């Protein structure tokens, strides 16, 4: 499923080369054909000499080629395709007017130089029934049509490509997002804990079915709580501690008498609100890096109280003395720090104190 998006993403550089080749081919072919049509028309219908016709229309086409290429450069540089439609329309109209007028002036100048008339002979022959000033106006219309055709073709292709790129980009983003969500979910589910708990349940089923049933119920609770948790959600400390109790009961299965828990939760603290999974993450850390690493285990203390409109939660656990102080806080704690900072700003803090040997204290302060 994840591969479907990669099928779209042809290497960017190859794609760019392909579009570039297509652009140059069309540019040469378009202006070349226009030159050939105008110059040969002038020789056939206006009895002009080949060299004069070639000079006039060669000049016009080379100018057109250069000016449109310049316009393409401006469009790309100014990222016109990313502009809102109205802004793009205004810019394109201005560009069209400027381009058509410039081509018109160049045509007049070259025609004057070659034939001494301001209307090119082929157009003069075409519009011979019109008065001279209207012939000149039609010559402008001619330049305008050529410009419009170029802009129409160019925008048609470029907009399609832009849309396609955007689609590919969106697909890639969606894929990245999926992968990130999956990673987050995996870390929240704590697979090491999960499989150990399942193993414990399997061991209990035959001899102690009642304990096995209780463990399955608690496992279901923790999974449901984890899966339902939304990033910005706040829950009461009491609700979060229900989850923590289920979790600790399951860890108690595998750690047996190595895990003791002491809770000291003030009644007003129980009703205070905390980000969902915050205490749970700290407890998981305390078990994983602390008590589970000790042969004799130890006592986990969970304390919460409110003072001066501030909720303080402390998780205190023993840890191996020899264990080096981790150089990074670990993703779990970093994520938690970031989350409470986003939710409460500078009024909240999360601190892991490893200054005392053999003891780890995680402390959260939140506005109550």
């Amino acid at each position, binding site marked *: 499923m994840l591969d479907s998006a990669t099928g779209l993403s042809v290497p960017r550089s190859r794609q760019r080369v392909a579009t570039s080749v297509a652009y140059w081919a069309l540019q040469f072919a378009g202006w070349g054909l226009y030159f050939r049509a105008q110059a040969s028309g002038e020789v056939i219908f206006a009895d002009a000499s080949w060299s004069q016709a070639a000079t006039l229309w060669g000049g016009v086409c080379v100018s057109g080629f250069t000016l449109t290429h310049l316009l393409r450069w401006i469009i790309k540089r100014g990222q016109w395709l990313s502009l809102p439609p109205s802004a793009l329309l205004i810019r394109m109209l201005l560009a069209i007017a400027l381009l058509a007028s410039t081509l018109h002036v160049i045509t007049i100048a070259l025609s004057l130089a070659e034939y001494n008339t301001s209307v090119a002979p082929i157009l003069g022959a075409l519009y011979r029934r019109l008065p001279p000033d209207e012939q000149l106006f039609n010559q402008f219309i001619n330049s305008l049509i050529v410009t419009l055709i170029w802009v129409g073709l160019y925008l048609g292709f470029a907009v399609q490509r832009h849309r396609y790129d955007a689609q590919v980009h969106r697909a890639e983003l969606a894929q990245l997002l999926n992968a990130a969500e999956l990673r987050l979910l995996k870390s929240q589910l704590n697979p090491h804990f999960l499989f*150990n708990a*399942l*193993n414990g349940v399997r061991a209990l089923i*035959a001899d102690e079915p009642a304990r096995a049933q209780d463990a399955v119920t608690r496992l279901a609770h923790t999974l449901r709580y984890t899966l339902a948790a939304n990033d910005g959600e706040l829950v009461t400390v009491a609700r979060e501690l229900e989850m923590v109790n289920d979790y600790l009961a399951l860890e108690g299965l*595998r750690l*047996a008498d190595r895990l003791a828990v002491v809770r000291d939760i003030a009644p007003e603290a129980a009703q205070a609100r905390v980000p969902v999974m915050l205490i749970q993450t700290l407890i998981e850390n305390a078990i994983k890096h602390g008590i589970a690493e*000790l042969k004799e285990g130890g006592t986990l203390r969970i304390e919460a109280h409110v003072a001066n409109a501030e909720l303080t939660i402390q998780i205190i656990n023993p840890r191996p003395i020899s264990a080096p102080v981790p150089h990074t806080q670990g993703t779990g704690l970093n994520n938690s720090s970031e989350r409470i900072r986003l939710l409460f700003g500078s009024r909240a803090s999360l601190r892991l104190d490893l200054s005392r040997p053999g003891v780890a204290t995680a402390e959260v302060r939140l506005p109550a």
Partner: protein
Amino acid sequence: MKALIVDDEPLARRELRRLLAAHRSIQIVGEAGDIDEARERIESLAPEVVFLDIQMPGGTGFDLLTRLDWIPRIIFTTAYDRYGVTAFDVNALDYLLKPIEPERLAVALDKLRATAGGETHKGSPLEQLFVRDGPRCWFIPVRDVSVFSAEGNYVRIQWGQERPLLGRSLAALESKLDPQRFFRANRQQIINLESIRSMELGVGGRLHVQLNDGREVQISRRQARQFRERTTV
């Protein structure tokens, strides 16, 4: 076959005991809850196979293996393969994911029986080394090593294309090696006699030895005489 169960969780040990009860060929001689206990039991009980959990307090299963002089057959048991055991060279060992499936256990035990030959026991020369270098681990059959070189207090092992570092001294290693096969070429190196391709006399009574992998080792003058005595046919 004598087996030892090493796991820090009593419930996990209980579960494995129950699963193994169905296999008459396996006789559980003991249990251990951490690696120090495990090391002691392996030395005193000499089990032929050890069911070894990886994550334990006080040190991992890998730590245990690097400290053993004599390594029984190992079957790793792990709840979640954070260490990539499943990517190990499975010819050298097997692994079981917890909760362990009875069928999977039966397959592992069959494999164990099929490859059981070549009885090794405590006191016989070192046959297998477990080496952990950075994120990689190897079970190295000692007879396939061509050179052991001292590197500070450690030993660099030359084994095929690999050059892992072993966390013991060359002198400590030398006392465990089979003297019929391994020879102290100089102060820095021990060579495998089986991997010698050719040799020639060097300056001042030294010997230049070329090994099968193309590497050259010098045998010091002091050792050269002994070497000639050993290898003279």
